[in-house]
C-alpha cells in the first residue's frame, strides 16, 4: 500500500515539475521579453523608462542569463511565494488573482461532488432496471449531455433564463456580496449560486460516469457472488448495494479521478460565458494582453491544484478497493 502511495506521490511531483516547465515555456513564448512588454505597456500610457533602468530591470529579472538559469530563478522565486508582477494591474500577481483561484476550485469541486451524487444512483438504477423506461430516458439524457459542449449549454441556459425568466443568470454572488469581505452570509450566497455553474460543468462528466457505472454494474450483477449473497437470505436491496455496487465502484472511482482536470478546464470557458469571478476570464484577459507572469502563474497554479485533486481521488480509490491496499496493485 505504501508503495502505491509512494508511486502516486512521485508521479504527482514529476507532473508538477513538468507543468512548471511548460508554463515557463508559455511565459517565454511571445516575442520579446518581459521588459520589452513592460516598456510597450508604459508607452501606451505615455510614460517610459530610461535605457539604464531597462538594463537594470533586465538584470534583476535575470533576463540576460541563459534560459535554464532564468527557469531556476523563476522557480526559486515561486517557492518563496513571489509570483511576479502583473503588467496590466501593476500589482503583484497574487493580489490580482486573489480569491479567484479558490473560487475556481470551489466550482470544480462542486461539479465533481454533483457528478458523484448524480451518476452513482442513476447508474445503479439504470443497471438494475435495465431496459425500463427510466433506463432509456437516462440513456438519452446522457447522450445529449455528452453531445453539448459545456459552454454551449451555459449559453443556452443563460439565454433561456434571460428570455423567459427575465433574470440575469450567472455570476457567483449577488450584487451586494460581490465585493464584500468574507462572512457566513457570503458563503451562503455563494452556495445558492453554485448549482447552475456546477450543473453545466458536471453534465458531460455525469453522463460519462453513468455509462461507466451502468456497464460495470451490469457485468457484476451477472456474477456468481451475487447469487451467493441472495442464497444467504439477504434482502435484495442489500444484496445489490453491498456486493455488485461495491465491485463496480472501483472502475467508477478510478475514472472519476480523471474528470477533475476536465472540470477545471471546463470551468474556464463556462466562467467566461456565465461571468463567474473565477480564474477563467482573468486568464483570457492576461493571455490576450500578453501579461505573461499573470497568465503563467494562473496556468501553473491551476495545474498544480489539479494534480493535488487527482491525487486525493487516487487515495480515495485506494481506500475503496481492498485489493489495492493489500497487494499494492
Amino acid at each position, binding site marked *: 500500500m505504501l508503495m502505491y502511495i509512494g508511486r502516486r506521490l512521485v*508521479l*504527482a511531483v*514529476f*507532473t508538477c515539475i*513538468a*507543468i512548471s516547465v*511548460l*508554463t515557463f515555456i*508559455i511565459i517565454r*513564448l*511571445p*516575442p520579446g521579453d518581459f521588459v520589452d512588454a513592460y516598456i510597450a505597456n508604459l508607452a501606451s500610457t505615455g510614460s517610459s523608462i530610461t535605457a539604464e533602468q531597462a538594463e537594470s530591470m533586465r538584470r534583476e529579472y535575470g533576463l540576460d542569463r541563459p534560459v535554464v538559469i532564468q527557469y531556476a530563478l523563476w522557480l526559486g522565486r515561486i517557492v518563496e511565494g513571489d509570483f511576479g508582477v502583473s503588467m496590466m494591474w501593476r500589482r503583484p500577481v497574487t493580489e490580482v488573482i486573489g480569491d479567484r483561484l479558490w473560487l475556481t476550485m470551489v466550482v470544480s469541486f462542486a461539479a465533481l461532488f454533483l457528478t458523484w451524487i448524480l451518476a452513482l444512483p442513476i447508474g445503479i438504477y439504470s443497471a438494475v432496471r435495465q431496459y425500463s423506461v427510466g433506463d432509456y430516458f437516462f440513456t438519452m439524457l446522457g*447522450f*445529449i449531455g*455528452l*453531445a*453539448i*459542449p459545456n*459552454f*454551449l449549454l451555459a*449559453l*443556452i441556459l*443563460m*439565454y433561456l433564463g*434571460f*428570455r423567459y425568466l427575465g433574470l*440575469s443568470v450567472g455570476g457567483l454572488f449577488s450584487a451586494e456580496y460581490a465585493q464584500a469581505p468574507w462572512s457566513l452570509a457570503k458563503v451562503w450566497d455563494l452556495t445558492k449560486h453554485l448549482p447552475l455553474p456546477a450543473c453545466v460543468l458536471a453534465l458531460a462528466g455525469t453522463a460519462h460516469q453513468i455509462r461507466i457505472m451502468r456497464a460495470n454494474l451490469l457485468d457484476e450483477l451477472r456474477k456468481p457472488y451475487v447469487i451467493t449473497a441472495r442464497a444467504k437470505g439477504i434482502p435484495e436491496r442489500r444484496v445489490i448495494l453491498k456486493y455488485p455496487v461495491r465491485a463496480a465502484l472501483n472502475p467508477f472511482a478510478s475514472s472519476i479521478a*480523471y474528470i477533475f*482536470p*476536465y472540470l*477545471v*478546464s*471546463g470551468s*474556464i*470557458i463556462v466562467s*467566461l*460565458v456565465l461571468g463567474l469571478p473565477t480564474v477563467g476570464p482573468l*486568464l*483570457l484577459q492576461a*493571455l*490576450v494582453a*500578453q501579461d505573461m507572469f499573470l*497568465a*503563467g502563474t*494562473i*496556468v501553473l497554479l*491551476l*495545474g498544480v491544484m*489539479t*494534480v493535488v485533486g*487527482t491525487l486525493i481521488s487516487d487515495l480515495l480509490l485506494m481506500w475503496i478497493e481492498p485489493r489495492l491496499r493489500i497487494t499494492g496493485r
Partner: protein
Amino acid sequence: MSATTASSASAGASLADDRLAQAGQLRLTWLRFKRHKLALISLFIVAFFYLLAIFADFVAISDPHHTDARRSYMPPQGIHLFDENGFAPHVYGLKGSRDMKTFKMVYVPDPSKKIYIAFFAPGYEYNLFGLIPTNRHLFALINPTPVDGIFLLGTDQLGRDLFSRLAVATRISLSIGLASVGLSLVLGILLGGMSGLYGGIVDTVIQRLIELIRSIPTIPLWMGIAAALPNTWTVLQVYFAITLIISLIGWTELARVVRGRFLALREEDFVIAAELVGAGQFRIMLRHMLPSFTSHVIAAVSLALPAMIISETSLSFLGLGLRPPAISWGILLQDAQNVQVLAGAPWLLMAAVPVVLVILAFNFLGDGLRDAADPYG
C-alpha cells in the same frame, strides 16, 4: 485464424487467403454494426455532414464573406413556395425604411417584391474542390439586387448570411477534427504500439507520460499556447498550429486503446503460433495483429473525433483558435457569446445545431463500432 497461420507458414503466401482472413474480420464487424439502427443512422448523418463539407460552397447561397451592414441582424426569412401561378419558390425582396426609434435605415422584407429561386443556378464565384472555378449553386436567386438574399437562418451583425456561413464552417470544423485525429492516430499507434509490444521500461515511461498529460487541465495549456501564436500568421498557419496543439494532447486515449489491444493480442495463440513458425516481429505486427485491432481503432477514432471538434470549437469561441476571416463553428458561436446580442438575434444560436448533431452522431457511431468490433469487450 487457420488461414492466417497457414499463410505465414508458406513463403509464397496466397494473397487471396490473406484477403479472406482480413475481409472475414471486417465483414463480420460490418454485419454486427448494421444491427445497431442508431449507429447506422449516425453513419449517414456523419456522411451527410462530410458531403456538406466537400460541397459547402455549392450549397451556400450568398458569399459567406460578403458583408452588407444594411442587412445586419435580419431574422430568418422563409422561402415561400407558392405564388398566384402555382409552385414557384421565391423570397421577398428587401426595402429600406427608417426605424422610428433609432432613425437608422433598416431593411425589411417587402411582400410586393418577389425574387424567384432557381436550382443549379449561377451565384457567387468559388472554386469547387478548391480547383474548378464555377459559380453554380444548389439554389440561388434570379436577378437579385445586391442587398437581397435567401436568409434561411438570418444574418449576423455584418449582414452575412448565417446559413451560407454555417455550410462553409462545416468544412473547416470537420476537417480540423479529421486532421487532428489523424495526427493523434499516428502518435497513438506509434507510442501505444511501442508500449504494448516492447513492454518493460519503454512501456513504463510512455505510461507515465500519458498519465502526466491526462492530469494536466488542457484548456489553460491550449489557451497559453494558442495565445502565443503570433498575430502575423496566416489563417493556414494558424489552422495547422491549432491542429497540432489539439492532437498533441488528444493522442493519449488512442495510445491507451492501441496498447491495450497489443497487450491482449500478444498472448493470443495465433500470434504465438506465428512466432513459433519464425515470422519476424514486424511481419507479425502487420499481418496478424493489425487486422485484429483495426476495428477497435476505428471505434476509438470515432469517439475521439467529437472531442477534437469540441476542442477547436471551444478555442475559436474564446477567440484563441482560428481567427476571422476563417469561418468555423466556434467562430460563428463567438458572435452569440453575448446574452444581450442573443436576446435581439436568437437565431445566431443555430450555429450550435450542427455541432450538437455531429457530436451526437459520432458518439453513437463510435459506440456502435465499438460494440461491433468487440461485443464482449
